[in-house]
């Protein structure tokens, strides 16, 4: 598939080959970055970050990636400071901004906003989260982190823990992992189980899936434990939230029976689902995971700009 000019909207748009290629490019960029400090592939190119909904970490990660690639960044970080507030349509905002830039990163509270933006814009559009729908760069950096830590993804046993019902991150990660030969433990409270259609899709693709609410029972089997936050704002019903909040806490006690090589991941920010004492253990991979966002986003920006 041709990368120049390509939009990055949904993990569904990617094939396994696309993913593998992207991970290789990210790895190459990370090595170059280590050697040279900064690169100049995107010199003279401008990234517009349109954050209609604030998400400081994701925005900083994209900005850092563009700067490390030698390009520059313009944009806004909340809709209240733009003409959107005056009632401008999303399409018009996009058509205007593309006159100023070479690639657009968009974050929006409405599902499908990034897809619409991509249809309107001539330049590549990268989805940095559209409501509760997709956040494809998060999934790609998750895969990259696993691959960097283990040298492979095939053959691993991966536990997804927490809110598997509403958690956007774990849905698309699970869908992407289905390309690989992995075994999955889906660990959640009864109320927050992975939607049936996703489990069926995984099984159809040959993934061995175990559903359980028993974290301690699953721990010894795992190579990766991917922890998610149980997010109050995703719950339609506060009562339902109160029943499951604080269901799990990953601490050194829980990790006692884990493999020596177990890695704990988390898309961050965390609240109390991973105790800070885990940070210093050999299991913690979540800050490294944050770093992975930079080479992965550098690869995406560089490839869609056609400068790599």
């Amino acid at each position, binding site marked *: 598939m041709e990368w120049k000019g390509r939009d990055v909207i*949904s993990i569904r748009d990617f094939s396994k080959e696309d993913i593998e290629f992207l991970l290789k490019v990210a790895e190459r960029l990370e090595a170059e970055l280590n050697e040279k400090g900064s690169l100049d592939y995107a010199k003279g190119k401008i990234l517009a970050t349109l954050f209609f909904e604030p998400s400081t970490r994701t925005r900083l990660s994209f900005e850092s990636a563009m700067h490390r690639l030698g390009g520059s960044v313009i944009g806004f970080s909340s809709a209240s400071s733009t003409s959107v507030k005056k009632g401008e349509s999303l*399409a018009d905002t996009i058509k205007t901004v593309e006159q100023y830039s070479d690639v657009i990163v968009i974050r929006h509270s*409405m*599902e*499908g*906003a990034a897809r*619409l933006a991509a249809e309107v814009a001539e330049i590549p559009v990268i989805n940095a989260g559209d409501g509760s729908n997709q956040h494809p760069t998060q999934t790609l950096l998750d895969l990259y982190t696993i691959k960097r830590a283990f040298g492979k993804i095939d053959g691993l046993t991966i536990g997804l823990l927490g809110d598997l019902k509403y958690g956007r991150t774990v849905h698309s990660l699970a869908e992407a992992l289905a390309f690989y030969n992995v075994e999955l433990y889906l660990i959640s409270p009864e109320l927050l189980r992975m939607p049936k259609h996703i489990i069926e899709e995984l099984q159809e693709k040959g993934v061995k899936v175990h559903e359980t609410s028993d974290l301690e029972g699953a721990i010894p089997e795992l190579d990766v434990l991917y922890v998610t936050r149980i997010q109050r704002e995703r719950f339609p019903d506060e009562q339902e939230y109160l029943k499951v909040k604080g269901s799990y806490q990953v601490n050194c006690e829980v990790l006692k029976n884990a493999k020596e090589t177990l890695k704990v991941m988390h898309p961050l920010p965390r609240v109390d689902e991973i105790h800070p004492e885990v940070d210093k253990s050999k299991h913690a991979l979540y800050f490294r995971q944050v770093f992975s966002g930079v080479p992965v986003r550098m690869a995406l920006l560089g490839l869609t700009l056609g400068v790599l």
Partner: protein
Amino acid sequence: MAELKVTAIKEGTVIDHIPAGKGLKVIEILRLNRPNGGALLLASNVNSKKLGRKDIVKVEGRFLSEEEVNKIALIAPTATVNIVRNYKVSEKFKVEIPDEITGILRCANPNCVSNHEYTVSKFYVVSREPLKVRCHYCERTMEEEDILRNL
């Protein structure tokens, strides 16, 4: 009981083999019951060899477009459409659920961009039996009940 005789029409469309009870819905979806529309005839619970019971809708002076036919396919997948000119069937086709449904269905997700910005709605058919479609924009799937409510 012999098959019900339905008065022939000179020019227009006869939608046959509608599952019994869905005829009114076909009329509603196609907005055939507008005051400026042609004469309209609904036959309900007619004996049918194929379906047991069926509905038939006849509309005088209107030829259905393919887009409209696709609309019917979602609620009446068994329907056949006859275009009548000068008392004769000039064209006959079976409705078919297309792979993509464009412009006729609204997304059931209130937070979908297609319900807030100017777009032409688009859905991919994920499965025909049972009917399930996925929104091109928000990627949510809708099942039969939601589909019928949003046509």
